[in-house]
């Protein structure tokens, strides 16, 4: 079993308290960073580690940090994005509940690297228990001199606050999050300017996911080179995967990037296979926004190579036969699940969560929901599939923020891979209400790659 970097001590009793966390080597990275490293050294180290944003977009964290503008006399902010709301994802909740000090430790190091004197953790409002946990952890750290004025006698001051959201998926988008933190509706801003230039209160700001901030701790403790040894290619380090749906052992797992998906899904160390002896029909690998894949294309790429849990391998085949790592929200569907119903459910979610700023998303998600509703309830037409693809194409790329894309991809991919199931809902409308299409051929092995002789 590989060494865990974030969840190593998760099962130690009392690890949520400062003293136990400290006795397990906690806050060592703060001492190392503040006493022996310059802010630029830390940014360089994170760059070298190859850490990519764990919130979904996968943008290199060190590079994001290096874009931060540093005008003289202007405050800079670090904001942690703990608005975890992507359906399928629950890793940040887990981390904040059981090992809150890891996030606080990462926030101190990252704030020091960016020169922020005030930092905020924006937690979605429904996570009130986690907000209480974080507030308690912050008070403990402050009492021990790791926050507040003159931290560890180094002259560095930092105040850290927790901000609750109001229950809006859109606030996971970084500029909407900043609007919300300013006490406004969560309407995403037009970029540029990027938050690195004009973010919170118009000041240079970095917004990072909980897991990205936590990963800074092992990077500073062990060094970027050690961190980059884990993983494969440009997918370095470990990743928290939230496994849910019809898997036998749902939960949060820390994996080395590059783990074969088959091992992740079927080994007892991780998901343990599909529950109740059923067979796998489909997988959403990275949260509801990423394209859904049938079992055969998920386990093997179109070239018949085993698929790996890495940014590149999951994206192998582009949107034709691949998907995305996203936020690591892994949802498995067994043979009894209806893809049409699931697509309708997800689209209802996006329609509900669209902020309403851009017409293609505000109207398009509603139309798609209506069409999918009638398909699921046996009133669909054969032309509906083309209509859905058409609407999704008109949303994709035509909105200020990526919510439009996130709403379009699940619909387009479901029709791409499960078109016969959609058509069956039209041709067998009455039957579709009482029973599901079933597994069909979705788990059949792909035909062997054709070899062409040169």
């Amino acid at each position, binding site marked *: 079993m590989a060494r865990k970097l974030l969840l190593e001590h998760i099962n130690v009793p009392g690890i949520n308290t400062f003293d136990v966390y400290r006795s397990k080597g906690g806050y060592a990275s703060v001492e190392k960073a503040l006493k022996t490293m310059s802010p630029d050294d830390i940014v360089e180290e994170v760059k070298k580690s190859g850490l990519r944003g764990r919130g979904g977009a996968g943008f290199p964290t060190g590079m994001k940090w290096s874009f931060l503008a540093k005008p003289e006399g202007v*405050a800079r902010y670090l904001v942690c994005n703990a608005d*975890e*709301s*992507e*359906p*399928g*994802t*629950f890793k*940040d*909740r887990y981390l904040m509940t059981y090992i809150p000090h890891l996030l606080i430790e990462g926030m101190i190091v990252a704030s020091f690297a960016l020169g922020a004197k*005030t930092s*905020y953790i924006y937690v*979605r*409002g*429904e*996570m*009130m*228990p986690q907000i*209480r946990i974080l507030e308690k952890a912050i008070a403990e750290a402050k009492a021990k001199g790791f926050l507040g004025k003159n931290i560890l006698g180094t002259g560095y001051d930092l*105040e850290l*606050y927790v*901000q*609750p*959201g*109001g*229950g*809006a*998926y859109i606030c996971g988008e970084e500029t909407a999050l900043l609007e*919300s*933190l*300013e*006490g*406004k*509706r*969560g309407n995403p801003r037009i970029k540029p300017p990027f938050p690195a230039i004009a973010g919170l*209160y118009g000041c240079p700001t970095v917004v990072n996911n909980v897991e990205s901030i936590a990963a800074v701790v092992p990077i500073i403790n062990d060094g970027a080179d050690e961190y980059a040894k884990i993983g494969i290619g440009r997918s370095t380090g470990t990743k928290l995967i*939230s*496994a*849910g*749906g*019809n898997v036998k052992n*749902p*939960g*949060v797992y820390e994996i080395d990037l590059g783990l074969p998906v088959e091992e992740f899904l079927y080994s007892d160390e991780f998901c343990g296979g599909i529950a109740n002896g059923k067979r796998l029909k489909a997988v*959403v690998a990275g949260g*509801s926004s990423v394209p859904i894949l049938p079992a055969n294309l998920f386990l093997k790429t179109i070239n018949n190579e085993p698929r790996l849990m890495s940014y590149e391998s999951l994206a192998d085949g582009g949107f034709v036969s691949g998907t995305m790592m996203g936020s690591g*929200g892994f*949802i498995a*569907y067994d043979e009894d*699940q209806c893809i049409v*119903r*699931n697509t309708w*459910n*997800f689209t209802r*979610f996006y329609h*509900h*969560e669209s*902020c309403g700023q851009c017409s293609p998303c505000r109207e398009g998600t509603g139309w798609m929901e209506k069409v999918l509703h009638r398909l699921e309830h046996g009133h669909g037409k054969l032309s509906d599939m083309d209509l859905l693809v058409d609407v999704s194409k008109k949303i994709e790329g035509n909105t200020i923020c990526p919510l439009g894309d996130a709403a379009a991809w699940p619909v387009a991919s479901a029709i791409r891979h499960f078109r016969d199931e959609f058509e069956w809902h039209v041709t067998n409308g009455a039957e579709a209400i009482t029973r599901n299409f079933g597994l069909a051929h979705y788990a059949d092995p792909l035909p062997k790659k054709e070899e062409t002789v040169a």
Partner: protein
Amino acid sequence: MLRVDEQQAPVTFTPELVKQFDDIVSRYPAGKQKSALLPILHLVQAEYGWLSSNAMDKVADYLKIQDIEVYEVATFYSMYFMRPQGKYVLEVCRTGPCEIVGAGKIMDYIEQKLGVKEGEVTADGLFSWRGVECLAACGFGPVLQIGPEYTFYENLTNHSVDQLIADLKVKGNN
């Protein structure tokens, strides 16, 4: 439009509540007190159970912002109630991963058990319920939450829903 047809009592914030407001405002730079809006609305809703327009106007006064700035925020975010609710609002996650492990059936059961439709309040004023979107507990579905502390109840079954409702009835208005 804001619904103003409900009976609205005049609102005066207690000194303890205002002290909590002050504490929140101190987290932001001078002049950026509007940032305190969302946390303050949570506190007000915890106190009164919902956000009446009287309460929102008072928040606007306190933060020295326009009333409309409070209304537009309160109506945007799904956690704020624009009309009175039961003392316990059962909010059941209805999104994908919970749906495939039976959230729909749990909502049907709650509706039948409480005898009120989604968004309505039981005659004793204790309960209302609604479906909400993903609560980020997808591995432990079906789940529901109950404010104002948003306590979580995971891996719901009809039996555990019975138990929960029975416990809350005993707790009643205390």
